[in-house]
Protein backbone atom coordinates (compact mmCIF):
# COMPACT_ATOMS: atom_id res chain seq x y z
CA UNK A 1 0.00 0.00 0.00
CA UNK A 2 1.28 3.43 -0.96
CA UNK A 3 1.19 6.63 1.00
CA UNK A 4 -1.83 8.89 1.18
CA UNK A 5 -0.96 12.53 0.78
CA UNK A 6 -4.39 13.95 0.00
CA UNK A 7 -7.73 14.18 1.72
CA UNK A 8 -10.48 12.12 0.05
CA UNK A 9 -12.07 15.30 -1.27
CA UNK A 10 -8.86 16.64 -2.76
CA UNK A 11 -8.21 13.20 -4.26
CA UNK A 12 -11.61 13.20 -5.97
CA UNK A 13 -11.42 16.78 -7.21
CA UNK A 14 -7.89 16.25 -8.53
CA UNK A 15 -8.91 13.12 -10.39
CA UNK A 16 -11.90 14.87 -11.92
CA UNK A 17 -9.64 17.69 -13.10
CA UNK A 18 -7.75 15.08 -15.14
CA UNK A 19 -4.69 15.19 -12.93
CA UNK A 20 -3.19 12.29 -11.01
CA UNK A 21 -4.02 12.38 -7.30
CA UNK A 22 -2.15 10.29 -4.70
CA UNK A 23 -4.31 7.31 -5.62
CA UNK A 24 -7.45 6.39 -7.51
CA UNK A 25 -10.51 7.41 -5.42
CA UNK A 26 -13.25 4.96 -4.38
CA UNK A 27 -17.01 5.49 -4.44
CA UNK A 28 -20.09 3.34 -3.94
CA UNK A 29 -23.87 3.41 -3.78
CA UNK A 30 -25.66 0.56 -2.07
CA UNK A 31 -29.03 -1.04 -1.30
CA UNK A 32 -30.28 -1.64 2.22
CA UNK A 33 -29.63 -5.42 2.19
CA UNK A 34 -26.04 -5.08 1.02
CA UNK A 35 -25.44 -2.15 3.38
CA UNK A 36 -26.54 -4.17 6.39
CA UNK A 37 -24.40 -7.11 5.26
CA UNK A 38 -21.36 -4.88 4.84
CA UNK A 39 -21.77 -3.21 8.22
CA UNK A 40 -22.17 -6.56 9.91
CA UNK A 41 -19.13 -7.98 8.14
CA UNK A 42 -17.02 -5.00 9.15
CA UNK A 43 -18.34 -5.11 12.70
CA UNK A 44 -19.73 -1.59 12.51
CA UNK A 45 -22.53 -0.73 14.89
CA UNK A 46 -23.90 2.77 14.65
CA UNK A 47 -27.18 4.27 15.60
CA UNK A 48 -28.91 5.11 12.33
CA UNK A 49 -32.16 4.51 10.54
CA UNK A 50 -31.26 4.74 6.87
CA UNK A 51 -33.93 6.19 4.64
CA UNK A 52 -34.67 3.59 1.98
CA UNK A 53 -34.96 5.09 -1.51
CA UNK A 54 -37.05 4.08 -4.43
CA UNK A 55 -34.51 1.50 -5.59
CA UNK A 56 -34.08 0.23 -1.99
CA UNK A 57 -30.90 2.30 -2.03
CA UNK A 58 -29.63 4.00 1.13
CA UNK A 59 -27.11 6.71 1.90
CA UNK A 60 -23.94 5.33 3.39
CA UNK A 61 -23.38 6.96 6.76
CA UNK A 62 -20.22 9.11 6.69
CA UNK A 63 -18.74 7.02 9.53
CA UNK A 64 -19.23 3.82 7.54
CA UNK A 65 -17.83 5.55 4.45
CA UNK A 66 -14.70 6.53 6.34
CA UNK A 67 -14.25 3.15 7.97
CA UNK A 68 -14.60 1.33 4.65
CA UNK A 69 -12.39 3.83 2.87
CA UNK A 70 -14.73 5.64 0.52
CA UNK A 71 -13.60 8.98 -0.83
CA UNK A 72 -17.09 10.07 -1.82
CA UNK A 73 -20.21 10.21 0.27
CA UNK A 74 -23.57 10.44 -1.44
CA UNK A 75 -26.14 12.55 0.32
CA UNK A 76 -29.71 11.71 -0.65
CA UNK A 77 -32.09 13.85 -2.61
CA UNK A 78 -32.05 17.25 -0.86
CA UNK A 79 -35.21 18.64 -2.47
CA UNK A 80 -38.29 18.68 -0.26
CA UNK A 81 -41.09 17.42 -2.47
CA UNK A 82 -44.59 18.81 -2.76
CA UNK A 83 -47.71 17.40 -1.11
CA UNK A 84 -48.05 13.64 -0.92
CA UNK A 85 -49.91 12.03 -3.78
CA UNK A 86 -52.22 9.13 -2.93
CA UNK A 87 -51.89 6.04 -5.12
CA UNK A 88 -54.93 4.68 -6.95
CA UNK A 89 -53.67 1.34 -8.29
CA UNK A 90 -54.79 -1.52 -6.03
CA UNK A 91 -51.29 -2.95 -5.77
CA UNK A 92 -49.50 0.37 -5.33
CA UNK A 93 -47.76 1.17 -2.09
CA UNK A 94 -47.06 4.80 -2.89
CA UNK A 95 -47.24 7.39 -5.65
CA UNK A 96 -44.46 9.82 -6.46
CA UNK A 97 -44.93 13.49 -7.21
CA UNK A 98 -45.00 12.76 -10.96
CA UNK A 99 -47.94 10.44 -10.25
CA UNK A 100 -46.15 7.24 -11.10
CA UNK A 101 -47.34 4.54 -8.72
CA UNK A 102 -45.06 1.95 -7.17
CA UNK A 103 -45.62 -1.48 -5.66
CA UNK A 104 -43.43 -3.64 -3.52
CA UNK A 105 -42.46 -6.83 -5.36
CA UNK A 106 -41.19 -9.63 -3.16
CA UNK A 107 -38.91 -12.36 -4.41
CA UNK A 108 -39.72 -15.97 -3.52
CA UNK A 109 -36.29 -16.32 -1.89
CA UNK A 110 -36.59 -13.14 0.20
CA UNK A 111 -35.70 -9.56 -0.57
CA UNK A 112 -37.82 -7.07 -2.44
CA UNK A 113 -37.77 -4.24 -4.92
CA UNK A 114 -40.04 -1.31 -5.67
CA UNK A 115 -41.46 -1.37 -9.17
CA UNK A 116 -43.82 0.86 -11.14
CA UNK A 117 -47.35 -0.36 -11.62
CA UNK A 118 -49.03 2.76 -12.97
CA UNK A 119 -47.85 5.34 -15.48
CA UNK A 120 -49.78 8.64 -15.53
CA UNK A 121 -49.34 9.28 -19.27
CA UNK A 122 -50.15 5.72 -20.31
CA UNK A 123 -53.09 6.93 -22.41
CA UNK A 124 -51.63 10.21 -23.71
CA UNK A 125 -50.84 10.37 -27.41
CA UNK A 126 -51.03 14.03 -28.42
CA UNK A 127 -49.25 17.19 -27.32
CA UNK A 128 -52.63 18.56 -26.22
CA UNK A 129 -53.09 15.56 -23.90
CA UNK A 130 -50.39 17.14 -21.74
CA UNK A 131 -52.48 20.25 -21.09
CA UNK A 132 -53.45 20.35 -17.48
CA UNK A 133 -51.05 17.62 -16.37
CA UNK A 134 -49.99 18.50 -12.81
CA UNK A 135 -46.25 18.98 -13.42
CA UNK A 136 -44.54 19.18 -10.02
CA UNK A 137 -43.27 22.43 -8.57
CA UNK A 138 -39.48 22.77 -8.30
CA UNK A 139 -39.68 22.43 -4.50
CA UNK A 140 -37.08 23.71 -2.07
CA UNK A 141 -34.25 22.63 0.20
CA UNK A 142 -35.20 22.72 3.87
CA UNK A 143 -32.88 24.54 6.33
CA UNK A 144 -32.12 21.27 8.16
CA UNK A 145 -30.94 19.73 4.88
CA UNK A 146 -28.63 22.67 4.24
CA UNK A 147 -27.40 22.25 7.81
CA UNK A 148 -26.73 18.54 7.22
CA UNK A 149 -24.65 19.23 4.09
CA UNK A 150 -22.77 21.85 6.07
CA UNK A 151 -22.14 19.40 8.89
CA UNK A 152 -20.82 16.68 6.58
CA UNK A 153 -18.50 19.22 4.95
CA UNK A 154 -17.27 20.46 8.34
CA UNK A 155 -16.87 17.09 10.06
CA UNK A 156 -15.48 14.92 7.26
CA UNK A 157 -12.90 15.17 4.51
CA UNK A 158 -15.12 13.30 2.08
CA UNK A 159 -16.14 14.60 -1.32
CA UNK A 160 -19.89 15.15 -1.43
CA UNK A 161 -22.04 13.78 -4.22
CA UNK A 162 -25.72 14.53 -4.52
CA UNK A 163 -28.52 14.78 -7.03
CA UNK A 164 -30.85 17.74 -7.05
CA UNK A 165 -33.13 16.87 -9.97
CA UNK A 166 -34.37 13.72 -11.60
CA UNK A 167 -34.03 12.49 -15.14
CA UNK A 168 -35.62 13.83 -18.31
CA UNK A 169 -35.54 11.02 -20.87
CA UNK A 170 -35.80 8.24 -18.33
CA UNK A 171 -38.53 9.98 -16.37
CA UNK A 172 -40.51 10.30 -19.61
CA UNK A 173 -40.21 6.51 -19.77
CA UNK A 174 -41.71 6.20 -16.29
CA UNK A 175 -44.55 8.61 -17.05
CA UNK A 176 -45.54 6.72 -20.19
CA UNK A 177 -44.51 3.16 -19.45
CA UNK A 178 -41.46 1.67 -21.12
CA UNK A 179 -43.05 -0.01 -24.08
CA UNK A 180 -45.36 2.87 -24.91
CA UNK A 181 -42.58 5.43 -24.63
CA UNK A 182 -40.16 3.59 -26.88
CA UNK A 183 -42.93 3.00 -29.40
CA UNK A 184 -43.99 6.66 -29.21
CA UNK A 185 -40.43 7.77 -29.93
CA UNK A 186 -40.80 6.16 -33.33
CA UNK A 187 -44.43 6.95 -34.12
CA UNK A 188 -45.17 10.17 -32.16
CA UNK A 189 -41.97 12.23 -32.08
CA UNK A 190 -43.74 15.58 -31.53
CA UNK A 191 -45.52 14.22 -28.48
CA UNK A 192 -42.25 12.84 -27.08
CA UNK A 193 -40.46 16.13 -27.65
CA UNK A 194 -43.20 17.98 -25.76
CA UNK A 195 -43.13 15.55 -22.81
CA UNK A 196 -39.38 16.01 -22.41
CA UNK A 197 -39.67 19.77 -22.78
CA UNK A 198 -42.08 19.89 -19.83
CA UNK A 199 -39.94 17.63 -17.70
CA UNK A 200 -36.73 19.52 -18.50
CA UNK A 201 -38.32 22.76 -17.38
CA UNK A 202 -39.08 21.30 -13.94
CA UNK A 203 -35.66 19.68 -13.61
CA UNK A 204 -33.68 22.77 -14.59
CA UNK A 205 -35.67 24.89 -12.13
CA UNK A 206 -35.07 22.28 -9.46
CA UNK A 207 -31.30 22.21 -10.00
CA UNK A 208 -31.14 26.00 -9.81
CA UNK A 209 -33.22 26.26 -6.63
CA UNK A 210 -31.30 23.49 -4.86
CA UNK A 211 -27.79 24.41 -5.95
CA UNK A 212 -28.32 28.02 -4.90
CA UNK A 213 -28.80 26.60 -1.39
CA UNK A 214 -26.27 23.76 -1.22
CA UNK A 215 -24.06 24.19 -4.29
CA UNK A 216 -21.04 25.26 -2.26
CA UNK A 217 -20.98 21.85 -0.56
CA UNK A 218 -21.45 19.78 -3.70
CA UNK A 219 -18.36 18.36 -5.39
CA UNK A 220 -20.11 16.03 -7.80
CA UNK A 221 -23.66 16.64 -8.97
CA UNK A 222 -25.26 13.47 -10.21
CA UNK A 223 -27.59 14.39 -13.07
CA UNK A 224 -29.87 11.53 -12.23
CA UNK A 225 -30.08 8.51 -14.49
CA UNK A 226 -30.62 8.66 -18.21
CA UNK A 227 -30.15 5.05 -19.20
CA UNK A 228 -29.50 5.05 -22.93
CA UNK A 229 -28.19 1.56 -23.51
CA UNK A 230 -29.05 -2.11 -23.31
CA UNK A 231 -26.53 -4.90 -22.84
CA UNK A 232 -26.23 -5.20 -26.60
CA UNK A 233 -26.44 -1.69 -27.94
CA UNK A 234 -27.86 1.81 -27.55
CA UNK A 235 -31.59 2.05 -26.80
CA UNK A 236 -32.05 4.70 -29.48
CA UNK A 237 -30.06 5.85 -32.48
CA UNK A 238 -27.64 8.75 -32.27
CA UNK A 239 -29.83 10.54 -34.81
CA UNK A 240 -32.91 10.20 -32.60
CA UNK A 241 -30.89 11.28 -29.56
CA UNK A 242 -29.79 14.44 -31.31
CA UNK A 243 -33.23 15.30 -32.69
CA UNK A 244 -35.47 14.49 -29.75
CA UNK A 245 -33.46 14.17 -26.55
CA UNK A 246 -30.31 16.25 -26.65
CA UNK A 247 -31.92 19.72 -26.65
CA UNK A 248 -33.70 19.00 -23.36
CA UNK A 249 -30.74 17.39 -21.61
CA UNK A 250 -28.51 20.22 -22.71
CA UNK A 251 -30.89 22.75 -21.19
CA UNK A 252 -30.86 21.01 -17.81
CA UNK A 253 -27.13 20.28 -17.77
CA UNK A 254 -26.22 23.84 -18.70
CA UNK A 255 -28.40 25.28 -15.94
CA UNK A 256 -27.03 22.78 -13.41
CA UNK A 257 -23.38 23.31 -14.27
CA UNK A 258 -23.67 27.08 -14.34
CA UNK A 259 -25.33 27.21 -10.94
CA UNK A 260 -23.03 24.60 -9.38
CA UNK A 261 -19.82 26.21 -10.52
CA UNK A 262 -21.04 29.65 -9.43
CA UNK A 263 -21.01 28.27 -5.87
CA UNK A 264 -18.19 25.73 -6.19
CA UNK A 265 -15.87 26.45 -9.11
CA UNK A 266 -14.39 22.93 -8.83
CA UNK A 267 -17.80 21.22 -8.87
CA UNK A 268 -18.45 18.66 -11.61
CA UNK A 269 -21.57 17.24 -13.21
CA UNK A 270 -21.96 13.48 -13.67
CA UNK A 271 -24.35 11.55 -15.87
CA UNK A 272 -25.47 8.05 -14.99
CA UNK A 273 -26.25 6.06 -18.10
CA UNK A 274 -26.22 2.28 -18.12
CA UNK A 275 -25.55 -0.08 -20.96
CA UNK A 276 -23.79 0.12 -24.29
CA UNK A 277 -23.63 3.89 -24.67
CA UNK A 278 -20.30 4.51 -26.39
CA UNK A 279 -21.90 6.15 -29.43
CA UNK A 280 -23.26 9.02 -27.29
CA UNK A 281 -20.08 9.89 -25.41
CA UNK A 282 -18.69 12.50 -27.78
CA UNK A 283 -22.04 14.31 -27.77
CA UNK A 284 -22.17 14.22 -23.99
CA UNK A 285 -18.70 15.73 -23.76
CA UNK A 286 -19.76 18.42 -26.25
CA UNK A 287 -22.76 19.14 -24.02
CA UNK A 288 -20.49 20.03 -21.10
CA UNK A 289 -20.58 16.76 -19.18
CA UNK A 290 -17.63 16.21 -16.81
CA UNK A 291 -18.08 12.67 -15.49
CA UNK A 292 -19.74 9.55 -16.86
CA UNK A 293 -21.10 6.75 -14.65
CA UNK A 294 -21.18 3.73 -14.60
CA UNK A 295 -19.18 2.38 -17.63
CA UNK A 296 -21.06 -0.91 -17.70
CA UNK A 297 -18.22 -3.12 -18.82
CA UNK A 298 -20.46 -6.13 -19.49
CA UNK A 299 -22.34 -4.24 -22.22
CA UNK A 300 -21.28 -4.49 -25.83
CA UNK A 301 -18.49 -2.18 -26.91
CA UNK A 302 -17.87 -0.82 -23.41
CA UNK A 303 -14.16 -1.52 -23.65
CA UNK A 304 -12.52 0.56 -20.94
CA UNK A 305 -9.18 1.00 -22.74
CA UNK A 306 -10.93 2.10 -25.91
CA UNK A 307 -13.27 4.49 -24.08
CA UNK A 308 -10.35 6.12 -22.30
CA UNK A 309 -8.61 6.53 -25.63
CA UNK A 310 -11.67 7.91 -27.41
CA UNK A 311 -13.00 10.37 -24.88
CA UNK A 312 -10.77 10.18 -21.77
CA UNK A 313 -9.30 13.62 -22.35
CA UNK A 314 -12.75 15.17 -22.06
CA UNK A 315 -14.69 12.89 -19.70
CA UNK A 316 -13.84 11.38 -16.33
CA UNK A 317 -15.23 7.99 -15.38
CA UNK A 318 -16.99 6.76 -12.24
CA UNK A 319 -17.71 3.05 -11.95
CA UNK A 320 -16.46 0.18 -14.14
CA UNK A 321 -16.57 -2.55 -11.46
CA UNK A 322 -19.23 -4.95 -12.71
CA UNK A 323 -22.29 -5.47 -10.56
CA UNK A 324 -24.02 -8.03 -12.80
CA UNK A 325 -21.56 -10.87 -12.55
CA UNK A 326 -18.21 -9.96 -10.99
CA UNK A 327 -19.28 -8.54 -7.63
CA UNK A 328 -22.16 -10.95 -6.90
CA UNK A 329 -20.64 -14.13 -8.33
CA UNK A 330 -16.88 -13.60 -8.80
CA UNK A 331 -14.20 -14.54 -6.29
CA UNK A 332 -12.25 -11.89 -4.37
CA UNK A 333 -9.26 -12.73 -6.59
CA UNK A 334 -11.34 -12.11 -9.72
CA UNK A 335 -12.46 -8.80 -8.25
CA UNK A 336 -8.83 -7.92 -7.54
CA UNK A 337 -7.74 -8.68 -11.10
CA UNK A 338 -10.62 -6.75 -12.60
CA UNK A 339 -10.01 -3.66 -10.47
CA UNK A 340 -6.37 -3.81 -11.57
CA UNK A 341 -7.43 -3.88 -15.23
CA UNK A 342 -9.87 -0.99 -14.87
CA UNK A 343 -7.25 1.14 -13.09
CA UNK A 344 -4.77 0.30 -15.80
CA UNK A 345 -7.25 1.25 -18.54
CA UNK A 346 -8.97 4.27 -17.02
CA UNK A 347 -6.58 5.54 -14.34
CA UNK A 348 -3.67 7.08 -16.27
CA UNK A 349 -3.66 10.86 -15.98
CA UNK A 350 -6.47 10.80 -13.39
CA UNK A 351 -10.09 10.96 -14.48
CA UNK A 352 -11.19 7.72 -12.81
CA UNK A 353 -13.10 6.89 -9.62
CA UNK A 354 -13.51 3.18 -8.87
CA UNK A 355 -17.10 2.26 -8.07
CA UNK A 356 -19.49 -0.65 -8.60
CA UNK A 357 -21.47 -0.16 -11.80
CA UNK A 358 -24.73 0.27 -9.90
CA UNK A 359 -26.23 0.26 -6.42
CA UNK A 360 -24.70 -2.78 -4.74
CA UNK A 361 -27.47 -5.38 -4.43
CA UNK A 362 -28.08 -7.84 -1.63
CA UNK A 363 -26.46 -10.68 -3.58
CA UNK A 364 -22.97 -9.14 -3.34
CA UNK A 365 -20.82 -10.74 -0.63
CA UNK A 366 -19.13 -8.13 1.59
CA UNK A 367 -15.84 -9.95 0.95
CA UNK A 368 -15.97 -8.76 -2.65
CA UNK A 369 -16.55 -5.15 -1.65
CA UNK A 370 -13.52 -5.39 0.63
CA UNK A 371 -11.57 -7.01 -2.22
CA UNK A 372 -12.51 -4.08 -4.47
CA UNK A 373 -11.18 -1.58 -1.95
CA UNK A 374 -8.05 -3.57 -1.20
CA UNK A 375 -7.28 -3.82 -4.90
CA UNK A 376 -7.43 -0.03 -5.20
CA UNK A 377 -5.06 0.21 -2.26
CA UNK A 378 -2.80 -2.35 -3.94
CA UNK A 379 -2.81 -1.06 -7.52
CA UNK A 380 -4.25 2.46 -7.39
CA UNK A 381 -1.36 4.56 -6.12
CA UNK A 382 0.19 7.03 -8.54
CA UNK A 383 2.41 6.85 -10.40
CA UNK A 384 0.65 3.71 -11.61
CA UNK A 385 2.89 0.73 -12.18
CA UNK A 386 0.70 -1.83 -13.94
Amino acid sequence: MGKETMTPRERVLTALEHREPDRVPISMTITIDAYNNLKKYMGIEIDEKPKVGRWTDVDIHPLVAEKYGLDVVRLGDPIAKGPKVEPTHPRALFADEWRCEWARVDRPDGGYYYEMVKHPLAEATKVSDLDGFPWPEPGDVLPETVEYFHKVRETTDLAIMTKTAEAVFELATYLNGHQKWYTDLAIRPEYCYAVMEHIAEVQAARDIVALNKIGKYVDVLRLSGEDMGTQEGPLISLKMFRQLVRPHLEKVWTAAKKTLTAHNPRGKIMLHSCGAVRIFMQDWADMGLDVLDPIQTTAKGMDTALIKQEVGDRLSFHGAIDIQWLLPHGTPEQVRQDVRKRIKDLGPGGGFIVSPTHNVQGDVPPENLIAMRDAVWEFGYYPLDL
Partner: protein
Amino acid sequence: MDLSTLYQAVLGGEVDEAVEKAKEAVQSGATADVILKQALLPAMDEVGRLFENGEYFLPEMLAAGLAMKNCMAELAPHLAQAANVKPLGKVVLGTVQGDVHDIGKNLVGLMLQGAGFEVTDLGIDVPRARFVEAATQADILGLSGLVSTTIPEMAHVIKALQDAGVRDKVKLMVGGAPVTQEFADSIGADGYAKDAAAAARKAKQLLGLE
Protein backbone atom coordinates in the same frame (compact mmCIF):
# COMPACT_ATOMS: atom_id res chain seq x y z
CA MET B 1 -51.33 -8.28 -55.73
CA ASP B 2 -48.43 -6.03 -54.83
CA LEU B 3 -47.73 -6.44 -51.15
CA SER B 4 -44.56 -4.36 -51.16
CA THR B 5 -46.27 -1.26 -49.77
CA LEU B 6 -47.57 -3.30 -46.83
CA TYR B 7 -44.13 -4.78 -46.33
CA GLN B 8 -42.61 -1.29 -46.35
CA ALA B 9 -45.22 0.11 -43.97
CA VAL B 10 -44.57 -2.63 -41.40
CA LEU B 11 -40.82 -2.33 -41.80
CA GLY B 12 -41.02 1.44 -41.36
CA GLY B 13 -43.26 1.15 -38.29
CA GLU B 14 -46.04 3.14 -39.94
CA VAL B 15 -48.80 1.61 -37.86
CA ASP B 16 -51.94 3.17 -39.39
CA GLU B 17 -50.59 2.95 -42.91
CA ALA B 18 -49.78 -0.73 -42.46
CA VAL B 19 -53.30 -1.58 -41.27
CA GLU B 20 -54.77 0.34 -44.20
CA LYS B 21 -52.58 -1.60 -46.63
CA ALA B 22 -53.52 -4.89 -44.98
CA LYS B 23 -57.23 -4.05 -45.36
CA GLU B 24 -56.71 -3.11 -48.99
CA ALA B 25 -54.89 -6.35 -49.62
CA VAL B 26 -57.75 -8.38 -48.13
CA GLN B 27 -60.32 -6.40 -50.13
CA SER B 28 -58.45 -6.94 -53.35
CA GLY B 29 -58.60 -10.68 -52.80
CA ALA B 30 -55.24 -11.59 -51.33
CA THR B 31 -55.60 -14.51 -48.92
CA ALA B 32 -54.53 -14.06 -45.33
CA ASP B 33 -51.77 -16.63 -45.54
CA VAL B 34 -50.26 -14.92 -48.58
CA ILE B 35 -50.34 -11.55 -46.82
CA LEU B 36 -48.73 -13.14 -43.80
CA LYS B 37 -46.05 -15.06 -45.65
CA GLN B 38 -45.24 -12.50 -48.32
CA ALA B 39 -45.44 -9.26 -46.34
CA LEU B 40 -45.71 -9.46 -42.56
CA LEU B 41 -43.27 -12.24 -41.74
CA PRO B 42 -40.60 -11.08 -44.22
CA ALA B 43 -40.93 -7.52 -42.86
CA MET B 44 -40.33 -8.72 -39.30
CA ASP B 45 -37.47 -10.87 -40.48
CA GLU B 46 -35.88 -7.78 -41.98
CA VAL B 47 -36.57 -5.82 -38.77
CA GLY B 48 -34.63 -8.49 -36.88
CA ARG B 49 -31.77 -8.27 -39.34
CA LEU B 50 -31.61 -4.47 -39.14
CA PHE B 51 -31.70 -4.64 -35.34
CA GLU B 52 -28.88 -7.12 -35.21
CA ASN B 53 -26.88 -4.97 -37.63
CA GLY B 54 -27.29 -1.96 -35.36
CA GLU B 55 -29.35 -0.06 -37.93
CA TYR B 56 -32.61 -0.42 -36.00
CA PHE B 57 -33.02 0.31 -32.31
CA LEU B 58 -35.74 -0.37 -29.78
CA PRO B 59 -38.21 2.31 -31.01
CA GLU B 60 -38.03 1.22 -34.65
CA MET B 61 -38.41 -2.42 -33.63
CA LEU B 62 -41.38 -1.74 -31.36
CA ALA B 63 -43.12 0.40 -33.97
CA ALA B 64 -42.70 -2.33 -36.59
CA GLY B 65 -43.88 -4.91 -34.06
CA LEU B 66 -46.98 -2.85 -33.31
CA ALA B 67 -47.71 -2.45 -37.02
CA MET B 68 -47.36 -6.22 -37.48
CA LYS B 69 -49.53 -6.96 -34.45
CA ASN B 70 -52.30 -4.63 -35.62
CA CYS B 71 -52.19 -6.14 -39.11
CA MET B 72 -52.41 -9.61 -37.58
CA ALA B 73 -55.50 -8.50 -35.65
CA GLU B 74 -56.98 -7.32 -38.93
CA LEU B 75 -56.19 -10.65 -40.56
CA ALA B 76 -57.23 -12.82 -37.61
CA PRO B 77 -60.77 -13.64 -38.80
CA HIS B 78 -59.40 -14.59 -42.23
CA LEU B 79 -56.52 -16.58 -40.81
CA ALA B 80 -58.91 -18.60 -38.67
CA GLN B 81 -60.59 -19.78 -41.84
CA ALA B 82 -57.38 -20.56 -43.68
CA ALA B 83 -56.66 -24.22 -43.07
CA ASN B 84 -53.18 -24.05 -44.53
CA VAL B 85 -51.85 -21.56 -41.98
CA LYS B 86 -50.35 -23.42 -39.07
CA PRO B 87 -48.11 -21.73 -36.51
CA LEU B 88 -44.51 -22.96 -36.33
CA GLY B 89 -45.17 -23.89 -32.76
CA LYS B 90 -46.67 -22.72 -29.49
CA VAL B 91 -44.61 -20.56 -27.17
CA VAL B 92 -45.59 -19.58 -23.64
CA LEU B 93 -43.66 -16.65 -22.15
CA GLY B 94 -43.48 -15.05 -18.75
CA THR B 95 -41.31 -13.01 -16.40
CA VAL B 96 -40.42 -15.07 -13.34
CA GLN B 97 -41.84 -14.42 -9.89
CA GLY B 98 -40.28 -11.50 -8.06
CA ASP B 99 -39.63 -9.62 -11.29
CA VAL B 100 -42.08 -7.31 -13.04
CA HIS B 101 -40.00 -6.20 -16.03
CA ASP B 102 -41.64 -6.98 -19.32
CA ILE B 103 -40.39 -5.00 -22.28
CA GLY B 104 -37.70 -7.53 -23.17
CA LYS B 105 -40.16 -10.38 -22.89
CA ASN B 106 -42.73 -8.46 -24.95
CA LEU B 107 -40.18 -7.86 -27.70
CA VAL B 108 -39.30 -11.52 -27.74
CA GLY B 109 -43.04 -12.22 -28.06
CA LEU B 110 -43.35 -9.83 -31.00
CA MET B 111 -40.37 -11.31 -32.81
CA LEU B 112 -41.60 -14.86 -32.22
CA GLN B 113 -45.00 -13.91 -33.53
CA GLY B 114 -43.28 -12.20 -36.43
CA ALA B 115 -41.44 -15.44 -37.13
CA GLY B 116 -44.70 -17.39 -37.27
CA PHE B 117 -45.09 -18.76 -33.75
CA GLU B 118 -48.28 -18.69 -31.69
CA VAL B 119 -47.40 -16.79 -28.54
CA THR B 120 -49.12 -16.83 -25.16
CA ASP B 121 -47.86 -14.31 -22.63
CA LEU B 122 -48.37 -15.13 -18.96
CA GLY B 123 -47.26 -11.64 -17.99
CA ILE B 124 -44.97 -10.63 -15.13
CA ASP B 125 -44.26 -11.89 -11.61
CA VAL B 126 -45.46 -15.34 -12.73
CA PRO B 127 -45.58 -18.05 -10.01
CA ARG B 128 -43.81 -21.36 -10.69
CA ALA B 129 -47.10 -23.27 -10.72
CA ARG B 130 -48.34 -21.31 -13.74
CA PHE B 131 -45.28 -22.25 -15.77
CA VAL B 132 -45.77 -25.88 -14.76
CA GLU B 133 -49.40 -25.70 -15.82
CA ALA B 134 -48.46 -24.14 -19.18
CA ALA B 135 -45.66 -26.62 -19.91
CA THR B 136 -47.98 -29.32 -21.20
CA GLN B 137 -49.67 -26.99 -23.66
CA ALA B 138 -46.56 -25.44 -25.19
CA ASP B 139 -43.68 -26.47 -27.41
CA ILE B 140 -41.44 -23.85 -25.87
CA LEU B 141 -41.53 -22.21 -22.46
CA GLY B 142 -39.72 -18.86 -22.21
CA LEU B 143 -38.58 -17.46 -18.87
CA SER B 144 -37.56 -13.83 -18.58
CA GLY B 145 -35.77 -11.99 -15.78
CA LEU B 146 -34.08 -8.61 -15.67
CA VAL B 147 -32.42 -8.48 -12.28
CA SER B 148 -29.46 -10.55 -11.07
CA THR B 149 -31.40 -11.23 -7.87
CA THR B 150 -34.45 -12.62 -9.70
CA ILE B 151 -32.88 -14.97 -12.24
CA PRO B 152 -32.13 -17.68 -9.63
CA GLU B 153 -35.92 -18.16 -9.70
CA MET B 154 -35.47 -19.67 -13.19
CA ALA B 155 -33.68 -22.64 -11.61
CA HIS B 156 -36.59 -23.05 -9.20
CA VAL B 157 -39.04 -23.10 -12.11
CA ILE B 158 -37.01 -25.83 -13.79
CA LYS B 159 -36.99 -27.80 -10.53
CA ALA B 160 -40.76 -27.39 -10.28
CA LEU B 161 -41.14 -28.66 -13.86
CA GLN B 162 -39.01 -31.69 -12.98
CA ASP B 163 -40.95 -32.35 -9.80
CA ALA B 164 -44.19 -32.26 -11.77
CA GLY B 165 -42.70 -34.65 -14.35
CA VAL B 166 -43.18 -32.24 -17.26
CA ARG B 167 -39.66 -30.93 -17.83
CA ASP B 168 -39.17 -33.18 -20.86
CA LYS B 169 -42.47 -32.15 -22.46
CA VAL B 170 -41.23 -28.71 -23.37
CA LYS B 171 -38.16 -26.86 -24.62
CA LEU B 172 -37.06 -24.24 -22.16
CA MET B 173 -35.61 -20.87 -23.18
CA VAL B 174 -34.27 -18.23 -20.80
CA GLY B 175 -33.33 -14.61 -21.36
CA GLY B 176 -32.96 -11.16 -19.84
CA ALA B 177 -30.16 -8.70 -19.20
CA PRO B 178 -28.23 -10.63 -16.52
CA VAL B 179 -28.74 -14.03 -18.21
CA THR B 180 -25.79 -15.51 -20.08
CA GLN B 181 -25.23 -18.74 -22.01
CA GLU B 182 -23.19 -20.00 -19.05
CA PHE B 183 -26.05 -19.28 -16.67
CA ALA B 184 -28.53 -20.97 -19.02
CA ASP B 185 -26.31 -24.05 -19.20
CA SER B 186 -25.77 -24.11 -15.45
CA ILE B 187 -29.49 -24.32 -14.67
CA GLY B 188 -30.19 -26.81 -17.47
CA ALA B 189 -32.15 -24.61 -19.88
CA ASP B 190 -32.37 -25.73 -23.51
CA GLY B 191 -31.75 -22.37 -25.07
CA TYR B 192 -30.59 -18.81 -24.49
CA ALA B 193 -30.63 -15.84 -26.82
CA LYS B 194 -29.08 -12.46 -26.28
CA ASP B 195 -31.90 -10.46 -27.85
CA ALA B 196 -35.34 -10.75 -29.39
CA ALA B 197 -34.19 -11.35 -32.94
CA ALA B 198 -31.81 -14.07 -31.84
CA ALA B 199 -34.58 -15.57 -29.68
CA ALA B 200 -36.79 -16.11 -32.74
CA ARG B 201 -33.95 -17.95 -34.48
CA LYS B 202 -33.16 -19.99 -31.39
CA ALA B 203 -36.81 -21.04 -31.04
CA LYS B 204 -36.79 -22.36 -34.61
CA GLN B 205 -33.57 -24.26 -33.93
CA LEU B 206 -34.96 -25.83 -30.78
CA LEU B 207 -37.91 -27.20 -32.72
CA GLY B 208 -35.65 -28.41 -35.53
CA LEU B 209 -37.06 -25.92 -38.01
CA GLU B 210 -33.77 -24.30 -38.94
